[in-house]
């Protein structure tokens, strides 16, 4: 089976709208989570969010798209997708090649149009520009049609592990010879839908989130899009390569619809399976970008699973302390940050950590520092017990 390489990256998050801006914020320990998010929700100003400070209208102008049915989610995806494709130097003609696949992930999709949809679903109407864009598939059908893509295309929704599964699926399309190139990633915009959902679950923190801290009090929601261009040996030739995707595994925790088992069975199996796919031992992993949402449940379950699997715990951190939890985008965003760590041989500081969880005694990376990294693991877990771990490896 072909090896799979990352040849292009595009990302937009609360840390910035380019890869360089994102790295700069990580290097400087500068979080994008703030109480000042400009947002159409009653929780704006009272809860912190990792918002992207660009109004949807600005994108409409930039991309010259006036159709009201193209949503904020689709604009975020378009931004990151375009950057990834440009970074990998894929031409417009190359994108139309039937051997180029598109595998996207989102959990919000067009549901960011809460108020508009409410009107159109509760009052009689003869067609509305929003109707064809409310679902999750709309985001990638938009990209597919805008770029005239003819290869395999799909959308995955496994809640908060969605885009890690998109990366895994894209890599497997290449390895099984069903695509030569796969553009993979995830997108979610901040929406009343998810804000109120997570609020109802009582897992939103009123302060900046504190991954793996004893006194963590929940997560902050964020918005982001990240796309990666994956290429097999057939097309990669002498292209710039960021990293190789060597390991992946999807496992189910099979415990509860919205909580992980305390021993972290699903997370354990996902991490262990990713090591097996990569042909690596736990001691080969040089650092872990954890799921680390900072909820009571996640950090304890993930921590216990890590302690069980790794005889000696590698350095770990949660970049959700910078971006907030970007849900369907999180797997791809954190894959990008893991790749940045590999490419620049550096670790970023996990923010807002004070005291370890008493039983676990685990301390995330506290200061930005150089670090030799051959293999990095990135974890993503979601509601419904959907757990996925990825391993990226240094090719230099």
């Amino acid at each position, binding site marked *: 089976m072909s090896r799979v390489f990352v040849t292009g990256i595009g990302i937009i998050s609360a840390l910035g709208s380019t890869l360089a801006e994102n790295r700069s914020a990580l290097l400087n320990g500068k979080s994008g989570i703030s109480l000042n998010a400009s947002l159409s929700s009653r929780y704006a100003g009272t809860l912190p969010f990792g918002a992207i400070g660009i109004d949807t209208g600005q994108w409409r102008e930039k991309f010259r798209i006036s159709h009201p049915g193209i949503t904020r989610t689709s604009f975020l995806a378009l931004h990151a997708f375009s950057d990834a494709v440009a970074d990998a130097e894929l031409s417009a003609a190359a994108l139309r090649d039937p051997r180029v696949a598109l595998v996207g992930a989102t959990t919000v999709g067009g*549901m960011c149009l809460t108020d508009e949809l409410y009107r159109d679903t509760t009052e009689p109407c003869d*067609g509305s520009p929003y109707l064809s864009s409310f679902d999750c598939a709309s985001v990638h059908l938009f990209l597919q049609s805008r770029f005239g893509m003819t290869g395999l295309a799909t959308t995955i929704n496994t809640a908060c592990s969605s885009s890690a599964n998109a990366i895994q699926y894209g890599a*497997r399309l290449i390895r*099984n010879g*069903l695509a030569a190139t796969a553009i993979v990633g995830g997108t979610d915009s901040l929406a009343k839908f998810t804000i109120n959902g997570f609020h109802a*679950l009582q897992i939103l923190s009123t302060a900046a989130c504190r991954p793996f801290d004893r006194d963590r009090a929940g997560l902050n929601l964020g918005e982001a899009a990240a796309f990666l261009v994956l290429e097999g040996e057939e097309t990669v030739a002498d292209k710039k390569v960021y990293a190789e995707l060597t390991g992946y595994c999807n*496992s189910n925790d099979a415990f509860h619809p919205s909580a992980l088992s305390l021993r972290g069975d699903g997370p354990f199996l996902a991490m262990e399976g990713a090591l097996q796919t990569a042909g690596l031992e736990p001691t080969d992993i040089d650092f872990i970008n954890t799921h680390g949402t900072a909820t009571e449940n996640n950090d304890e379950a993930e921590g216990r699973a890590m302690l069980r699997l790794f005889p000696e715990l590698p350095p770990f951190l949660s970049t959700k302390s910078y971006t907030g939890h970007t849900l369907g985008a999180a797997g791809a965003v954190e894959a990008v940050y893991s790749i940045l760590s590999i490419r620049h041989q550096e670790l970023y500081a996990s923010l807002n950590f004070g005291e370890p969880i008493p039983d676990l005694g685990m301390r995330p990376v506290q200061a930005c520092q150089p670090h030799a990294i051959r293999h990095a693991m990135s974890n993503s877990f979601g509601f419904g017990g959907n757990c996925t771990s990825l391993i990226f490896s240094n090719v230099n």
Partner: protein
Amino acid sequence: MLYIHQTSCISPQNGLDSLPKGPVNNLLKAIEPQYGGIPGNVLRRMSKSVKMGIGAALPLLKHSPDGILIGTGYGGMEDSVRFLNQIIEYDEGILTPGTFVQSTANAIASQLGLLCHNRGYNITFVNRGLAFESALLDAAMLVREHPGKSWLVGGVDEISTQNYRFEYAEGWYKKEDLTGKDLYRSDTPGTIAGEGAAVFILNDRREGALMRIRKIALPGGDDEHGLQTALSGLLEGMSPDLLLSGENGDSRARNWYRIVESMMGPDTGIARFKHLCGEYPTASAFALWLACNLPDTLPEHLLKRPPHSALRHILIYNNYKFTQHSLILLERLP
């Protein structure tokens, strides 16, 4: 090699023996079973699509699949819109999380994992009219990657009030009542709405299998030439014994089905199935179930053109909203 071993289906029909049930107000609603085996308190919280998906999959769980793959075009749309409306009506006040958690599209696959304590591969595809095909393609990769293992693959969608309103407003359903009329003779735009769940056990073992899935092609976009190229590539000169056509009575879609029919040999029979299941994003899962369960003598209501030979090779062509095309080539095993 990908083989189908077990099938299970919840559809608007009571099997294939009786005369088909027609639509009421242009809706073909699924006949739901008693759902024994799902705890009552769990059942009450489930949306119809989750119930149908789990109800169809339950009889197959005894075959201990190694993973669960679900395609759903609408996902938990009914619950999503219900939650969204609560957000507005209560002005983002205190809401209960149940509707939110149930509304996630991965509820079917994850509830199945929970019910049978399956910690294996678990995934949900939501790309509208090709959601089920993405799951099938995934299974085709999984059997290559993990020889000897079995996979539960399903396609599930419900008619939700919201979706029907949305799509009716967009012109996807007929304005005139089709009760008692022939769907395929209708000359107007739009079709009838349907729903259902069809679930399969797939693996790489030929012995004991009902059907082999030889090839899957999903040519993208509004491109006649692309469809023709994909179909020629799929058939490699052979002519299937039967075309199972997703023709749905929408006058605007007819040309796509004509293109595929015109590429069949004169001996290829043509059968249609949307009068049985209605139109929905994962209707091709029903078509696959039908292909696996066809009686030796095909009922008259299925036939557009009778086949000339025993059914060995069956081609399913389905088209969702003109831009999503699915071609599945099957081989019936003796």
